[in-house]
């Protein structure tokens, strides 16, 4: 069995493109929050997902802080140890994780974590 090993080094956060993610696919993962990096230009969340008895690490990218806040997030919304479900567009290259579409907290509340489109300008029918 292969494990995706993520280092905490900066290269994981170096800027990238949306081309890295498969916009046509949406996959959900339920797990436990390991870290939340609350910073610009992207907030990052890492979780571990129990797969066949093993904790597999996943790393997810969200939008910028201001974008998340428009979606109702606050700085302390999720913390290490929380149970969360993350719906995301997966990495095209198979890396464990993706670009977050929305998260669902253990109490059922849902928060969008979009890519930069302010809510006020989101036309109907556009994701």
């Amino acid at each position, binding site marked *: 069995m292969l494990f995706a090993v993520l280092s905490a080094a*900066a*290269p994981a*956060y*170096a*800027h*990238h*493109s*949306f*081309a*890295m993610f498969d916009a046509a696919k949406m996959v959900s993962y339920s797990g436990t929050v390991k870290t939340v*990096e609350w*910073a*610009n*230009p*992207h907030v*990052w969340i890492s979780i571990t997902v129990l797969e066949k008895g093993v904790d597999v690490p996943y790393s997810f990218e969200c939008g*910028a*802080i*201001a974008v998340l806040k428009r979606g109702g997030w606050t700085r302390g919304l999720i913390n290490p140890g929380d149970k969360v479900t993350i719906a995301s567009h997966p990495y*095209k*290259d198979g890396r464990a994780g993706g670009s977050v579409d929305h998260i669902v907290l253990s109490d059922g509340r849902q928060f969008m974590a979009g*890519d*930069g*489109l*302010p809510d*006020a*300008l989101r*036309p109907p*029918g*556009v994701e």
Partner: protein
Amino acid sequence: MSRLLIARPSRKYAWMASLLFVVATVEGATSQFPLYGDPAHPNISGMWDPEYAIFLLHPPPAAVAAKYASMAPAGPKLTPAYKERYEEWRKEYAAGKQAPDTVTRCLAFGFARFGTMPVEIIQTPGQITMNLGVLHDIRRIYVDGIGHTVGADPSFNGDSVGHWDGDTLVVETNNIRAATLDRDGVPYSDELTAVERIRRVSPTKLEVQTTLTDPKAFEEPYKMTRNFVAMPSGSRFEEYICENNKDFSPSGK
């Protein structure tokens, strides 16, 4: 020895302050920043959201594209050298990579992309200051009649001089550093100059029509419209520092 005179508000004018508050509240209906402005001209101050943000989706769904076609025309006709540069960008993007640009390197949005993010406009007599809500771009439009800045180095947002044509602010910008037109990597050169026509068409809408001229990169002048809509009342920016990219290396390491 010169003396510094400091004017202090006196209590006997307190009634004026309360009148100003009432006026401000009424004026607030037509401007988010009623205490800013220029007595002789329309007040374009406020917190503004870019209508153009819709095109942050690449490509926009057909339904959206049709409705907003006038806002995002096909793009400038690039000269052969710049067309080749752009094709390179597209190839890399299709391969799942993306060449770094001034934004991903946390440098600046620059003149042409300034209208793609929320902006705080502070209009005062003599100067209109625009603070971008993302990264650290500041545009200063001088309406003091003095003209362009002498001896300034080229900058990402250029040097801007404005004058009023009725209720329209006409801004001429030059001395711009090369960068890209939008997230798509369409390049422009250091010979870019621009003329904007900015008009507050309603209390909640700012119309910005821009003509870009770039003899090195564009075959002909390129016109684009990037309007703004008022942000919710009371909106304020937070500081935006690219912390995640502080160790980013352009080589991709």
